[in-house]
């Protein structure tokens, strides 16, 4: 095939007009191409993505522009659809966490949390979750909120050319990921929250690392404020861009920092506390400008609040040494704590000794629970959590079997991305990038 046969390479005439492929530094070609055609319209349709670095993953934007003004903006999604919800229907209830943690890859713990809370509601064991499991969940979720907001701010900064914001954002995120690695064994895709508790107890030394992280973050977080808050270029790019007021947010179902940037203090951690969030002291952060700058400030302030919660959770964990992290019900709890051996992570040697050398019943029990899993009473549950991007909820349906009958995730990225049109139409092309960055969509969550 020659270059001219391929409408995606070079310039081509189609029934809808002339098609140009632009990959950067070749805008002159378009200018010349349009100049030698007298009957050409002013209206140009620009197909941005799905591989564009400023679209937060594989998001395709279809922009109709007149000059530099966007007259219509549409999103094309689905490029990262991996059928996670369908896959979960063919795995046991516990294995479900391994799938859903991969959806919104910047906030894996929240995906796990909403799914696990839904399963626990169906099992009717919500009140039996040990305190330590809840505290560890809160600790990990708030650390995750910090790392997710750091990426939101870092990539948002990079997209407007503030590269320092990007480098320091990823520098701090690395510290959080190190903590995840220490506690769960993995930097992402943890599958650490399980129905009934968490997979593993806190490793020795983790609390010291967390405390060191908190004191370091208290020094590092002010850097973002110093770099950005009053920076005239930063403000000029963000202020009054991507405006969406409270009515617009509610009509389009936007939650999270976008909703809070309108001044409405809506936070599920306060309104429908889960995992014992009502026992922690923190404030819901709002801003009153309803624009991208407000969303940046909300995220920045929320990181401080998360740090406060992490501090309280660490203090509580110090008094919970040796406490159980899984429900007592042996029909639900995974039979063994995990341990790290010379060949990686697996069942602890004590447990292997017990089932292989001491108790046949324990071996049968282990085998049944691991292969068959447990049954969940029929019904449906929806327990939303406040993810870094807003209301994340899993609609979990059971038919009484050992596998989810249906698990649907209401992902905030998916819902919030619908606001792209209203946020960017009538503005400049460059502001589309800022508006999308202020929504902070994660395509893994959008497409699932």
């Amino acid at each position, binding site marked *: 095939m020659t270059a001219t046969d391929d409408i995606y390479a070079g310039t081509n005439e189609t029934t809808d007009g002339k098609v140009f492929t632009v990959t950067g530094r070749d805008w002159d070609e378009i200018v010349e191409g349009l100049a030698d055609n007298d009957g050409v319209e002013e209206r140009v349709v620009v197909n941005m993505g799905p591989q564009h670095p400023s679209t937060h993953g594989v998001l395709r934007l279809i922009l109709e522009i007149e000059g530099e003004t966007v007259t219509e903006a549409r999103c094309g999604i689905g490029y990262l659809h991996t059928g996670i919800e369908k896959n979960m229907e063919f795995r046991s209830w516990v294995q479900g966490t391994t799938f859903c943690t991969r959806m919104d890859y910047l906030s894996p713990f929240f995906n796990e949390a909403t799914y696990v809370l839904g399963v626990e509601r169906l099992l009717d064991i919500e009140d039996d979750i040990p305190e330590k499991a809840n505290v560890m969940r809160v600790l990990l979720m708030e650390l995750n909120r910090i790392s997710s907001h750091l990426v939101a701010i870092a990539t948002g900064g990079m997209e407007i050319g503030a590269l320092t914001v990007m480098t320091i954002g990823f520098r701090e995120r690395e510290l959080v990921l190190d903590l995840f690695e220490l506690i769960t064994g993995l930097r992402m895709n943890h599958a650490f929250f399980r129905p009934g508790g968490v997979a593993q107890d806190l490793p020795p030394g983790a609390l010291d690392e967390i405390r060191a992280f908190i004191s370091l973050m208290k020094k590092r977080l002010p850097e973002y404020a110093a770099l950005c808050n009053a920076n005239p270029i930063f403000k000029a790019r963000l202020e009054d861009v991507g405006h969406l007021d409270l009515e617009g947010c509610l009509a389009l179902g936007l939650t999270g920092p976008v909703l809070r940037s309108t001044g409405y203090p809506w936070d599920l951690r306060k309104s429908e506390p889960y995992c014992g969030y009502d026992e922690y002291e923190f404030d819901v952060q709002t801003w009153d400008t309803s624009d991208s700058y407000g969303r940046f400030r909300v995220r920045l302030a929320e990181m401080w609040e998360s740090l406060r919660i992490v501090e309280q959770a660490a203090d509580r964990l110090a008094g919970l040494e040796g406490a159980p992290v899984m429900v007592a019900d042996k029909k639900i709890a995974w039979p063994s704590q995990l341990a790290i051996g010379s060949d990686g992570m697996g069942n602890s040697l004590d447990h292997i000794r017990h089932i292989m050398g001491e108790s046949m019943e324990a071996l049968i029990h282990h085998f049944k629970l691991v292969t068959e899993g447990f049954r969940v009473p029929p019904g449906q549950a*929806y327990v939303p959590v406040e993810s870094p991007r807003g209301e994340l909820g899993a609609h979990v349906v059971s038919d009484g*079997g050992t596998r989810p009958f249906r698990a649907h995730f209401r992902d905030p990225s998916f819902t919030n991305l619908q606001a792209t049109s209203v946020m960017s139409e009538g503005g400049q092309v460059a502001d589309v990038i800022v508006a999308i960055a202020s929504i902070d969509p994660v395509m893994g969550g959008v497409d699932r």
Partner: protein
Amino acid sequence: MSDEDKTTGPDHATDKVPAATDAEITAVGARTGMFGVSGTGDTSGYGGLVAPIVFPGDAQRPFGGWYDEVADALEKVTSLGRVVVHRREITFHVRREDLVAVATHLRDDPALRFELASGVSGVHYPDDAGAELHAVYHLLSMTFNRRIRLEVSVPDDDRHLPSLVAVYPTLDWHERETWDMFGLVFDGHPALARILMPDDWPGHPQRKDYPLGGIPVEYKGGSIPPPDERRSYN
């Protein structure tokens, strides 16, 4: 397990009267044997087991707490269909012809104010004859901090229900996803196109009867059967 009754409303504990559930149970399918698939040489002796799949029964008045307030308000627009209270979550089963009126009333009535729709989720019950496809809406009233669930069921051979985009614009993409995954047609949707699957994709992947396909293996022409035909626990 806690002793608290989870079949009643949040404020119901004060008068300690649980909402009675309907004595009549409706099975929406049956589970047979020890494993989900027959003909796999199940020698356990339990191959003949048949267990009906029964979902939580209908709740009877009083539902408890604010559940009755919402139910009373709904009765102004329509006769109340099935109501299920399970694990402290209330589900109103709504006929599809009433859906728009019900949703509009839930949103606009100052005593209800369900401002936010948290999306629609499809569920396919292939054995629930005459009501195979369900559309499940989660509504949230931020004013009163209440959550309810609306459930609309339609038969598989007439999978139409009205779109709620005019009432809750946020449902635009959610309805497209439910069409894409289940083939539910939301009449009146501004542009009911596929959203996650490619535009020319045949079939609706989240349906239980969607063919899954096995994996060929390089051993004497063998293949790994699709997951729904494998021997597995159910």
